[in-house]
């Protein structure tokens, strides 16, 4: 009985206490004002391009109904994105991670990010997360930043394929030229024969060992065989090149199987 009383008291006390303490659950908001170089918005995403060795300036406004606490800017590579779903590119070279202490209900932060000259070229993400003093987290804002390097990408020329193919046919690639203005050392060339779902049927790679000190590669008599049971549809030859600086370039040619 004594315990019952204690518990009843707790219930009353607990319910009473409930009302005096309205908790702040309003999220802060993060708004991207501008960037330099300027971003473009498409498909609900912010895109920007920058060359290695330059700076990237962000201007972001954070606001909250009560009290702001922190902004975190986090930049890292997103290389899986661009390797045609093969994910063979190397790991990150450039990262950025900084927490900014905030105060008040509105604040603008303008960090200037320096992209090192040796940054691996490719797609990066810059994520901006914000917290208020109660721990409410804002929806993050993300910029898809493409870093290109100097010298620029390799060129792919002479990708000639038949417009129409048949089952069992042998496709021969001749005169396909991959040339870089600097060097292909440490890079990689992949030539893929893909089905209508962009799934590789055959894969021919030229590994980095063969590219040491090479400025251009001419492919002669590379062959792919169309499988005897291949279904009709649009097939592709896809060429993917990474140069010494990590710049990625690609080329694609279509073939129809009736």
């Amino acid at each position: 009985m004594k315990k019952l009383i204690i518990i009843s008291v707790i219930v009353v006390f607990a319910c009473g206490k409930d009302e005096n303490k309205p908790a702040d659950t309003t999220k802060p908001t993060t708004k991207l004002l501008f960037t330099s170089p300027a971003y473009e918005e498409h498909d609900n995403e912010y895109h920007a391009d920058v060359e290695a060795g330059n700076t990237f300036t962000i201007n972001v406004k954070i606001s909250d109904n009560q009290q702001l606490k922190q902004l975190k800017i986090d930049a890292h590579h997103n290389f899986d994105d661009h390797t045609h779903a093969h994910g063979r590119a190397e790991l990150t070279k450039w990262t950025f991670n900084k927490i900014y202490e905030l105060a008040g209900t509105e604040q603008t932060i303008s960090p200037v990010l320096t992209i090192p000259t040796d940054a691996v070229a490719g797609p990066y993400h810059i994520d901006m997360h914000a917290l208020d003093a109660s721990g409410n987290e804002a929806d993050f804002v993300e910029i898809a930043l493409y870093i290109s390097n100097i010298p620029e990408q390799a060129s792919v020329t002479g990708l000639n394929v038949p417009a129409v193919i048949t089952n069992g046919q042998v496709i021969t690639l001749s005169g396909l030229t991959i040339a870089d203005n600097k060097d292909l050392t440490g890079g990689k060339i992949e030539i893929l024969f893909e089905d209508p779902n962009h799934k590789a049927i055959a894969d021919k790679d030229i590994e980095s060992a063969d590219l040491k000190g090479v400025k251009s590669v001419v492919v002669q008599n590379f062959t792919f065989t169309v499988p005897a049971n291949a279904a009709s549809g649009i097939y592709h030859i896809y060429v993917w090149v990474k140069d010494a600086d990590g710049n990625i370039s690609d080329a694609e040619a279509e073939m129809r199987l009736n």
Partner: protein
Amino acid sequence: MYFLQQYINSYITYICLKTLGKTKIRHIANVLVFLLSIDAHSQAVYSIGGIVLTTDGKPIPNVVLHIHENMLAVQTDSTGKFIFNHIKPGHYHLHAELLGYKSYETHIDLPELTYLYITLYQTTKYLDEVVIESAPLKTTNAQNSFKTDKITQQYFERNSSNTLMNTLEMIPGISAINMGIGVSKPVIRGLSMSNIAVTDNGIKQEGQQWGSDHGLEIDQYSVDEVEILKGPSALMYGSDAIGGVINIIQPKILHSNVYETKIMGIYRSNNDTYGVSAGANGNKNGNIFRVRLTGLQYADYKVPAAQFNYNRYTLPIYEGRLKNTAGNEVNASVMCGLNRSWGYSHLTVSNYHQNTGIFAGAAGIPRSYQLTHDGNFRDISLPNQNVNHFKIIINNSLKIRHNWLTHDAGYQYNLRNEYSKPEAFLIGLHPLGNLALNLRLHTFTNNIRYFININEKIEVLTGLQTSQQINNTNGYEYVIPNFLNIQTGAYFIAKYKPNIRLTYNFGIRYDAGYAYMQAGKVNYYDNVGTLLNTEIRSYAFSRLYHNWASAVGLSYFIHSQVNIKINIGKSFRLPTPQELSANGYHHGTFRYEKGDSSLSPMSGYQADVGLYYDNKKYNSGFTPFFNYFANYIYSKATASFVNKLDVGQLYQFSQSEAYFWGAEWQNEYYIHKHFTLRANTDYVYAHNLSTGLPLPFIPPFSVFAEVEYSTPIATKYLHKCYAKYSISAYESQQRVDRNEKPTQGYILMHLGLGIYVGKQYKDRIGIHLQIQNLADVLYINHLSRYKLLNLPEQGRNVVFNIVVKM
């Protein structure tokens, strides 16, 4: 520990050989039996005979009678007679059961009573007054101050869902935290993870239950019966049972010289599950065995959506199937044992193995390139988890003079491997490759209970429970350290029954625990795998804890059909290793969580009331509850970020003053001999007094209604045909913790059909068909781990089970 292993080893040899019946060994075994049986000197044996009759005096054949304490079972013959031979003097509980009749339970004192006239009442309700095996003093619900929900084999056959917990979710007060299909864990009245205990054959299941993405490692097809205790159960089950217990109990005993083989075929349309579960069991003069083998394979599951929204992005769901949610399971168990007049001794060895994919977009921010179809719905790529749970369980019951001593011992080895690309977390190339987490948990458990029957009114039980755990970890993530955890608890439970209407229960328990945590480290490597630096994530420390719990309760029959039950208690739970020393990003929960080595044991006061009405046609139970915790442990959102690349907000394990209240209301109405109507509802309100906010992961208010048509006999070979239609409605859940996503309400409809083929009482073939989520409703489950990503749940699912008994 060495001693225990020796003990287990000798037991395996002993029981296996004993069952095989090798004569040479039998001599040695007899010596062992002699040593075990303190009562061996009293040689006088008696018989318990009797007859089972209907209310109009006709004998009933095929009634199974069993003695609880030694698991001996017999069946009535065509004249309704039965006999147990070679029974020693002592106190016993005897049960008589047959489908279609109300179960019967009685106490027997030998040598005083030797012949029984038992009358069984016919009933349409198949769950009438069943014996609760897991109740401290093994009685019916009527004689306990707390009610235990019993889920029978029939329920499992007719309602089986993706996992054991999904099957049990329909019971009011019970929910499941899911991660896709195949991974789910129990929630009782809003409490989950380390606040809920699951026991299998009396031994508490010890996996890595702290993780919301870690499922319960139990083969649902090996489960015959489950008993669920909602509310504080820490007295008998130990500190983790603060919120309730799910007891998986030993399957029914077959009476002597009976063998049974059962093969079940399973198909589920939604994720193309194909499964087989085959089992056999038998009893030859009290030498019993049981084996079971289950294999399941399933593909990516289907949702009624082609895309989902995350933050500002719209992401694709290729062909409405969530990429990389396929999985498979292979489970096996072997049991053998002896049922004798001195008691019983059983050995169960089982292994559970599950390999399941984690949705491809669930490792960090989902990216559309991760979600492109890989050409195969059945493959398991990264991220994924691979779990193995091995168990050895020994259950003994031994007669000491007139009383009984039971002993359950268990060894468990839980191996959990979680794989994910380290690149996705920007950790760099790691020598461990994709192995994010490797957790190896060894648990030794011992439960000893001694039952004393003082007189007809007073029964007591004293018990001792010990557990030792060793955890070893590896992997490129750090979540919990290597640790050693020792717990010992002693308890005393008493039942006083002054008259037929009133029963009092009382219990007290004291626990002490010791935990030693090793330092936790994370290594960082460069692109070619050279070690760059080692980061200390948590320091080594040791802690000693102790606390006590106690409870009082009563059950009172105001009227023969109206029962009120009241329980009040103080309970506690020791902090878990994760709560004490986590410090890392767990890709499974998508959060960076940090432990606190200074957390104190969580303690609280809990009260519940049960009001039950039961007549021939209608039964109802209303069960309100209130839990108050002075220092409820949970992972709290802080106002700081973690200063690491691509890691967000810090969640810190902390303690808050909190309370929970709620109720379940359960109704069953037998409108007509063929029609049953069921309507249940449950609600939980959880409030954190320190933050003024609700607590996270609280199930929404729900209502369940079902109408079932069933007919006992249709023709000579087709019978017990049933058809049922149910609706479950879930209210939106707006009461959420900080940064937790609220969810919208939804209504699901389900259909079930089934029939049994074979002669009466044989039921050789059972065919069960269910259509879950009939209307293919798009909804988000508040307790789903994928809620964070706004991923919808499984769409329409046709479940087909066929059970063949031989």
